[in-house]
């Protein structure tokens, strides 16, 4: 039982990390109807920029390596980089493709993935780098001692970050003018345009926010596994989360992440040995697929009504 709980908690917490990536997808899909495949590359680029700035700042400007100033300055610079990338994407890729079918936009973001991946490695090099957030990846002592359940401090921290990020986004959506405009655009592009909401500004904001989410996700994933090219594959892991939760729902991304994370770990531990292991790679997709057969719009997605 202890083992079960340990696996379950570990899975739930890693699910939170998937949810972080899925969140970036949902934001952009909601606001612009673009299925942004480049989100994974953006996570990679953001994390690499952050680590890169952390190296460059002490070396070039004589700041003390590892200090709080360097950390936050790097964070701000990486965020600025992502904002610039988002605005450039809106201007160069999305604006000329307005009114094209969704598959064209999807393909364009795959092209964008290559560009961002190339750019990231060209600017910062392809070496695997460590990322230090100052939180150890070790079990919480009292839980371990009293109940014998190992829960990583780091995972808990990641969950906390994800929760606060979602809360922040919810506040942004609910209580600010930009947030209201965002929701209007998500509801109906044309109606939003007709009442004077500047669509392009909104898109820029969304891409910037998605860049921010990518940065946070990248930092957490990077601290976990090192900042390396494999980060781009986190995007693929986020896809079953998305279809489970529904493309258009922020809470869906979180709940989907939790379900995928937990069931993936449980399946690997309990079902995996029966068929020879390694099922983590496809199990989330199969789960999502089976789920879709029952609820085609995902858990929280908008019900799609077909009209002739």
């Amino acid at each position: 039982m202890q083992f079960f709980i340990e696996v379950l908690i570990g899975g739930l917490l890693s699910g939170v990390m998937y949810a972080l990536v899925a969140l970036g997808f949902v934001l952009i899909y909601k606001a612009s109807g673009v299925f942004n495949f480049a989100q994974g590359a953006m996570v990679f680029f953001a994390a690499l920029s952050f680590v890169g700035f952390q190296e460059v700042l002490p070396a070039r400007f004589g700041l003390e390596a590892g200090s709080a100033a360097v950390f936050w300055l790097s964070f701000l610079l990486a965020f600025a980089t992502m904002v610039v990338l988002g605005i450039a994407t809106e201007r160069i890729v999305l604006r000329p493709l307005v009114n094209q079918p969704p598959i064209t936009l999807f393909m364009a973001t795959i092209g964008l993935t290559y560009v961002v991946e190339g750019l990231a490695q060209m600017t910062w090099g392809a070496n695997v780098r460590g990322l230090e957030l100052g939180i150890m990846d070790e079990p919480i002592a009292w839980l371990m001692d009293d109940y014998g359940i190992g829960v990583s401090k780091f995972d808990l921290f990641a969950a906390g970050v994800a929760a606060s990020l979602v809360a922040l986004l919810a506040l942004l959506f609910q209580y600010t003018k930009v947030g209201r405009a965002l929701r209007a655009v998500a509801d109906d592009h044309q109606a939003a345009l007709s009442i004077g909401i500047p669509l392009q500004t909104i898109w820029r904001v969304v891409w910037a926010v998605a860049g921010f989410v990518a940065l946070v996700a990248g930092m957490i994933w990077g601290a976990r596994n090192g900042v390396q090219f494999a980060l781009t594959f986190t995007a693929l892991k986020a896809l079953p989360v998305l279809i489970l939760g529904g493309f258009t729902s922020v809470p869906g991304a979180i709940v989907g992440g939790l379900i995928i994370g937990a069931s993936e770990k449980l399946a690997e531990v309990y079902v995996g040995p029966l068929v020879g292991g390694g099922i983590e790679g496809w199990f989330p997709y199969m789960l999502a697929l089976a789920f879709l057969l029952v609820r085609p719009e995902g858990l929280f997605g908008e019900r799609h009504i077909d009209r002739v």
Partner: protein
Amino acid sequence: MLYREAGQFRTSYAEDGRIFPIRQDRIGFALLLLVFGVAVPLLANEYWLKAILTPVLIFSLAAIGLNILTGYAGQLSLGSAAFMAVGAFAAYNFILRVDGMPFLLALALAGLAAALVGVLFGLPSLRIKGFYLAVATLAAQFFIVWVLVKFPWFSNYSSSGVVTAQEVVILGYAFVSPEARYVLTFAVVAVLALAAKNLVRSATGRAWMAVRDMDVAAQVIGFRLMRTKLLAFAVSSFYCGVAGALYAYTYIGTVEPEGFNLDLSFKILFMIIIGGVGSIMGSFLGAAFIVLLPILLDNLVPALFGNALGAGFVSNLQLMIFGGLIIFFLIVEPHGLARLWQIAKEKLRLWPFPH
């Protein structure tokens, strides 16, 4: 331009329904077949046959497969490489385990095996569509590759999972030289491409297009969605399966399941987008473009910037140029190269006297 269709009257339905209603087009197409079927294998050097022309043909076949599913029936798929893997490994096992299995029969059976798997993974398309379906096809991609890796029976217990394709023998003739392999590939691809062209012009193809344009409306006017969609999955997977078998037998010779990864699926998707969604011709153009572009960049980038930049820089630059070109193409001509070809043809028909 060079020819007009003036004076060529279509006096029967059979004439009206031809693929090439204009006589000059028919002659041109026959010439094209002769050039690529006879002249090229005689004249081209080994590098071109082996590394460029054969893969272009094979990828064209896979692209036709995906185009049938995505371009004609409107079901976005990201799992075409997995169906190629099914074809490749099915052909390998048929030839390995059945004594005296003729190669062409094995090729057809490989296609059928892929079609069966395709129908299985096409079942969700009855409930879900669009990006949800695209992600569902990713399940096929990962699951099939995993099965092929995990169960060593498929690779005949080869310790590394890599299988070496047996020698291709048809009627006692062994296809060993690059020329022979190219001709075999060309023959199979030409026959299947022609079949595909006719299929999409038939009632079946029209049903696919009706489903693509609006499946509810198609259902209302009496198309059976289940049959139409599953048939699209079956035919598409058949083409991908045959392409996969050819890939193993006439192109690279040794295959492993991991070679048929998501990257390959994306590549095939790029081919149909760049070539033209919903166009058989576009599948060929797109495949040629995607195969040739990296080779061109390989030669061009070092020539332009010198070798001083380092291999890592050059490969990243290539990655960026590749991605950039895809975006550029989508912006400039979202209907792909096939559309450009069509426009050029219409312009040239009237040139140089447009009025």
